[in-house]
């Protein structure tokens, strides 16, 4: 497939496969552009578009401000289209509006949060993660988060707190562990883990000996 490209001045730029870090920077820059446009802050919007282009072209923002607006717009649209994931990731569909601000948040945190997830899981360096094709990175992050969540749900189901007593029905009822917004709507384990009393005859009797690692026999 032909790589998307655009021309600024005399130079033609080809948009190659975007790495995770560049993609996240583009996403952040694009949010600013949209916000400024909505607020009719046109000077800031123009500067943000140049900032957006500089991520890919590595050109200085002041230099980008000298090009014909139509070429700049064409470049912006080309990069924008190249940065849309071809896979419909549920992770990217999480709730983004009306979220309470958190005190530990800061600008550009998504990169650190996501690179932390991948580095913790796979032991990769930040440089390697930064250059990882963004769709691969998103898919791996989603799998990691999904695995963690399902593990938590399993552990939650084994605790007493998952079965609060309902005074109305006079029974303990299973209360599912809340899921992150991007997982809401996915099929979940609706039934609690079934428990049964173990007959006394089936419980081990006497002293229980445990095998220790690196020992040939049970002591």
């Amino acid at each position, binding site marked *: 497939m032909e790589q998307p490209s655009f021309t600024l001045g005399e130079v033609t730029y080809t948009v190659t496969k975007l790495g995770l870090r560049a993609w996240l920077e583009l996403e952040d820059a694009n949010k600013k552009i949209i916000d400024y446009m909505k607020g009719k802050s046109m000077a800031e*919007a*123009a500067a943000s578009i140049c900032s957006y282009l500089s991520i890919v072209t590595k050109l200085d923002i002041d230099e980008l401000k000298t*090009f*014909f607006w139509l070429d*700049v*717009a064409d470049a912006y649209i080309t990069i924008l289209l190249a940065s849309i994931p071809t896979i419909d990731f549920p992770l990217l569909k999480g709730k983004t509006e009306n979220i309470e601000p958190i005190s530990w948040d800061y600008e550009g945190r998504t990169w650190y949060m996501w690179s932390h997830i991948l580095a913790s899981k796979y032991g990769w360096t930040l440089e390697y993660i930064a250059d990882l094709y963004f769709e691969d990175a998103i898919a791996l992050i989603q799998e990691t988060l999904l695995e963690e969540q399902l593990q938590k749900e399993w552990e939650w189901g084994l605790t007493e707190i998952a079965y609060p007593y309902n005074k109305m029905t006079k029974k303990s009822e299973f209360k599912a562990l809340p899921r992150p917004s991007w997982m809401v709507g996915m099929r979940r384990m609706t039934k609690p883990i079934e428990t049964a009393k173990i007959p006394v005859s089936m419980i081990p009797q006497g002293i229980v000996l445990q095998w220790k690692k690196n020992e040939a026999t049970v002591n």
Partner: protein
Amino acid sequence: MKQLSIEEAFELYQVIGEYIPDIADDELEFIGTIVHNIRDGDRPRDYVKALSILTGYSAETITESIAPEDSLEFLYEGLAINQVKSLKDFCDRLNYG
């Protein structure tokens, strides 16, 4: 007449935005309607400001040194060179306002 940078194009859009028609069959009709709306509007400053952005001349130069018929030609030409219909589409795409 100059090709505008993205900053200048957005500045122009802020000035002419309210004079832009919702529907136009072609670029020529589109530009004609904008010019007609600015001229018939009650803010001559917008006319001068748009011309100033498109030509790079100061407002004083435009009002004192350019004949009205020439200024009208400049406005048509400037809006055409800078493909103002595409500018509207671009701003719409970015959810302007």
